[in-house]
């Protein structure tokens, strides 16, 4: 029993424990769920030291027979890629529990149970080294999300949940067929064995065979990403999902798709990956621009953030199919960054929703006056999301674009327009929701009182350029500032935004090592050596541990 097994089954145990609690004890359930998920997080922290510096090999490997016939094994392990995705799952689960604290008031027990079951599925997905086991976890994670949307969602939740379910099922059926086909062909579900068989030439797949298998996997993953034009389930799922559902969906579940592409599609079907890369890259770039343009005109905050995810995940897919170290590192970094900043955006939208029960941008305006901290945090998250240097998304976007430019400069030119557009839609959103004059809705109008004259805010004073009324900090009980609990959920993400933005070397070595191995199996030569003879001798560079290959 390795530490990884403990981390993996702890959420399942927590799920079972929550089920044992009496359904009416809402408070105990919440606290228990939070405590258990925090324990899981702390346990997962202990995984970091081992994998951190040597991410290229699998650590905490466990390989035992699960089902004799067919030969399905419980084979798990963790490399640099899996490590941070597992950490993302274990971090966001307690965060998701915290944001649901007040918001979820019916069927509380099931809600938290499903969240923990979801965590179990997600961790399983990121550590499975047996294709069938992977598939089982893939489906396990689907079920709780379906219920999270379908039970605790908004008005059109059934439509959204069914759409989500059908879309994903359509893909995973194909993937299952491909997995079974591979098994028939090779007699094993074991990912490492399969990879070894393929790369050593002992398992030879015909061209059509390989292409079809690649497409079957690719289709399943592309839906999950979601890659344009398979993205239309996402806006609906997000709009209807409760806050925690949106957070988990955007932050972690979408990464299952990109993770699958990187873990399975690329190494198992290298030729097919390379052959099909051109049109996939085109779809990714179209997704970047299309997602941003459509986000720009959304009247609904959650839809806006959802379409922005389509755009951001386009960067990831672009990076994955540019086949070089920079692009792959950037893609994985972008997966993590998007998990943090978009998760935070959905939380903040959720906070707004809890205050005014609307997701329409037009229902808001001037929120900065009554809730300055909320708006400050939203601004920081916005800046992270649009890739401001020193915050998390920048590193990933830069590396993806750099890698894409190395593969084909034109790709980078088109994809980089997404960076301009992201500033447009996010700043416009921020302006419409937080800036301007605050107007309390009719119900609260009499309660909103001018208070604390002269303290702040955003008002031309005696010599500013506008009408010179006295500046007031407004207090509106309907729009309070961040509560302690809301802060507690946000703060880890805020810290990570800055941390990932400024000290990227905490995370990149493990990622880079794992990607270097993937590139090796892909058989892509590192071709981007310097073309000019004039280059500073490497001795001039700082003496540090050479990059693990």
């Amino acid at each position: 029993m390795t530490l990884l097994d403990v981390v993996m089954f702890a959420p399942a145990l927590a799920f079972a424990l929550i089920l044992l609690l009496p359904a009416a004890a809402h408070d105990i359930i919440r606290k228990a769920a939070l405590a258990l998920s925090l324990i899981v997080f702390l346990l997962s922290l202990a995984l970091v030291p081992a994998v951190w510096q040597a991410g290229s090999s699998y650590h905490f490997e466990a390989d035992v027979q699960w089902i004799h016939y067919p030969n399905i094994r419980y084979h798990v392990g963790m490399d640099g890629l899996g490590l941070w995705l597992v950490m993302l799952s274990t971090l966001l689960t307690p965060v998701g529990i915290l944001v649901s604290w007040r918001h979820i008031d019916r069927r509380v027990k099931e809600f938290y149970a499903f969240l923990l079951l979801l965590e179990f599925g997600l961790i399983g997905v990121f550590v499975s080294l047996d294709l069938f086991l992977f598939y089982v976890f893939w489906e396990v994670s689907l079920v709780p999300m379906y219920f999270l949307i379908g039970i605790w969602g908004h008005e059109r939740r059934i439509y959204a949940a069914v759409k989500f379910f059908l879309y994903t099922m359509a893909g995973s059926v194909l993937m299952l067929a491909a997995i079974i086909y591979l098994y028939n062909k090779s007699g094993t579900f074991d990912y490492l064995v399969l990879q070894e068989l393929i790369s050593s030439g002992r398992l030879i797949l015909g061209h059509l065979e390989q292409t079809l298998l690649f497409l079957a996997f690719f289709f399943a993953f592309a839906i999950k990403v979601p890659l344009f034009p398979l993205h239309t389930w996402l806006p609906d799922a997000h709009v209807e999902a409760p806050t925690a559902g949106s957070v988990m969906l955007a932050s972690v579940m979408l990464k299952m798709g990109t993770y699958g592409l990187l873990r399975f599609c690329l190494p198992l079907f290298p030729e097919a990956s390379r052959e099909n890369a051109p049109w996939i890259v085109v779809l990714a770039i179209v997704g970047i621009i299309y997602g941003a343009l459509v986000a720009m005109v959304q009247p609904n905050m959650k839809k806006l953030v959802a379409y922005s995810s389509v755009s951001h995940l386009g960067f990831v897919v672009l990076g994955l199919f540019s086949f070089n170290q920079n692009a792959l590192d950037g893609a994985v970094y972008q997966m993590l960054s998007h998990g943090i900043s978009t998760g935070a955006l959905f939380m903040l939208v959720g906070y707004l929703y809890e205050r005014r029960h609307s997701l329409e941008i037009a229902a808001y305006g001037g929120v900065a006056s009554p809730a300055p901290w909320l708006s400050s945090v939203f601004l920081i998250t916005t800046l992270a999301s649009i890739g401001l240097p020193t915050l998390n998304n920048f590193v990933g976007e830069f590396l993806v674009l750099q890698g894409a430019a190395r593969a084909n400069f034109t790709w980078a030119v088109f994809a980089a327009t997404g960076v301009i557009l992201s500033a447009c839609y996010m700043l416009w959103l921020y302006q419409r929701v937080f800036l301007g004059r605050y107007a309390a809705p009719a119900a609260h109008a009499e309660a909103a009182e001018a208070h604390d004259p002269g303290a702040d805010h955003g008002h031309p004073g005696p010599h500013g350029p506008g009408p010179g009324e006295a500046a007031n900090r407004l207090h509106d009980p309907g729009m309070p500032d961040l509560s302690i609990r809301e802060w507690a959920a946000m703060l880890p993400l805020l810290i990570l935004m800055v941390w990932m933005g400024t000290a990227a070397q905490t995370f990149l070595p493990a990622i880079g090592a794992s990607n270097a191995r993937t590139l090796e199996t892909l058989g892509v030569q590192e071709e981007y050596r310097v073309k000019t003879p004039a280059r500073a001798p490497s001795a001039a560079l700082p003496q540090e541990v050479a990059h693990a290959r």
Partner: protein
Amino acid sequence: MNLWLIPVLPLIGFAITGIFGRRLSRTAVSAIAVGSVFLSFVWVLRVLAGMSTFEAPYVERYFTWFRSGDLSIDVSFGLDRLTAVMLLVVTGVGLLIHLYATGYMAHEGGYYRFFAFLNLFMFFMLVLVLANNFLLMFVGWEGVGLCSYLLIGFYFLEKFATTAGNKAFIVNRIGDFGFSLGMFLMVITFGSLSFDTVFPAVEKMPPETGAGILTAISLLLFVGATGKSAQIPLYVWLPDAMAGPTPVSALIHAATMVTAGVYMVARCWTLFTHSQVTMEVVAIIGLATAVLSATIGLVQNDIKKVFAYSTVSQLGYMFLGLGSGAFAAGVFHIVTHAFFKALLFLGAGSVIHALAGEQDLQRMGGLRKHIPITFWTLLAAAVAIAGVPPFSGFHSKDAILIAAHHHAPWMYWVGVATAAMTAFYVFRAIFLAFFGEYRGTAHPHESPPAMWAPLAVLAFLSLAGGYIPVLEFLEPVFPHMEEEHDILLVMFSVMAGLAGIALAYFMYVLRPGFAGALAARFAGAYRLLYNKYFVDEIYAAAIVDPVVQGSRSILWRGFDVHLIDGIVNGIGHRSHNIGALMRMWQSGNIRSYAAWVVLGSLIVIIALGFGGLR
């Protein structure tokens, strides 16, 4: 020598005022904000005093920001003569403006917020200047853009202010798009973004292989410069940026941030001089921007708008100098411009302060008697910008124009014509505001010492700053320029400036009705200039509206909702019974859910069994 302290001190100031500012008194906020910049300035002086020689660039390396494959980005600062000049300007002028702002903002809401942003700006600007690689420079580059956005939209209750902030950020992002692509090409070509690697590599590049790629890189970097330094076609954000408080206009949108593009080009002179095409483009864009915005400045009535267009125009001058190969002259103009343009804005702020918010030149007049200190200091700035010898603007403008003549004589003549216009519009503003009779309704009062003391210092620098030996100091940094001192060329430009002043005196003091008559006579031209050639309207109609409308009606409602979802829902509708089946899943009974999961797994395993039997 701990260069990092220079930017980090204001960052600490930002952190304190940003987080605790709401609880701090205004005195404490001012002390922290001004104090941190003061310490930073002192540290700059100390560091420079410790630099016995600038023979080799001094580099401090702190840590690796990120590394991927063979691309490694360090956080490292460098110091050479060019950096030294910029550091002195940024911290020196920055300190004066911080001090001024404590007076100017004394009665405004959001005092702590203002100073927090201002300190944050100092941090990013100093990072930009100190950075020893392109990506770190880009950090500062985007960071100052952020602060610009925050401070333009400082009066966030007003839609015009926040819209101007968005415009500034987004237009700058278009420039940054070019900057980024330039960096990507640089990494592909040189494998690094470090100045220490890239510039020597450029030097060694054989011209026949290098010309194409170096032209591409330098042009892309220049796109970045047109955004940050407000050149054609991306200058449109700067005039709108005047929505911010006046100290912001002085610090960010006149003295420091907008010169970042000039600094960047000067820093990359190796790259730029290797491409004739780029140098020509830089010169022409600079010159065209100088002329275009000067003509707009002729007729504006908002005192800050006049100076804003003047800034755009003067930045154009700087690029003209760079494009002509006179890098030192361009940087020299950054320095003198920082003095007189900061002074013009702070003086304008003092006027606006005195008139309780009035910015319309037509509603001023006769203020000479009411606010004499402001008048005299503004006059010092005006003679400096008009190029009247021996004041500061004369020296730097002269250096640029002579270089332009050496490069292409016609550019010199256009530059001279622009100098005449510059002198005219600045003195037009002076005469309209300070001469004649007061046309407004407020009760003008002189500003407090915290405001006029910086004015006095800047006035002194505007008058005498031309004698700071910037050109000589920078000589070892840039390629040598052939000296060409034709006294006649100097005479022409000085005459042009004086003629502009004289014409303004005639039109606004001697014959006050003349300007109106002229405007009526040439109504079409006047309207064109007054409306800034309708460039904003053209951009909106040609780019913004089609993109937004197209995204809404074609992409979203057409493609997304109708086409894709139409297909998906069509499939879904046919299998409606599946949906109905699924609704049963919501029994709310956890055991039944579990049963479903188990059942699902069973189906899968059975399917698998069939597969395995085959």
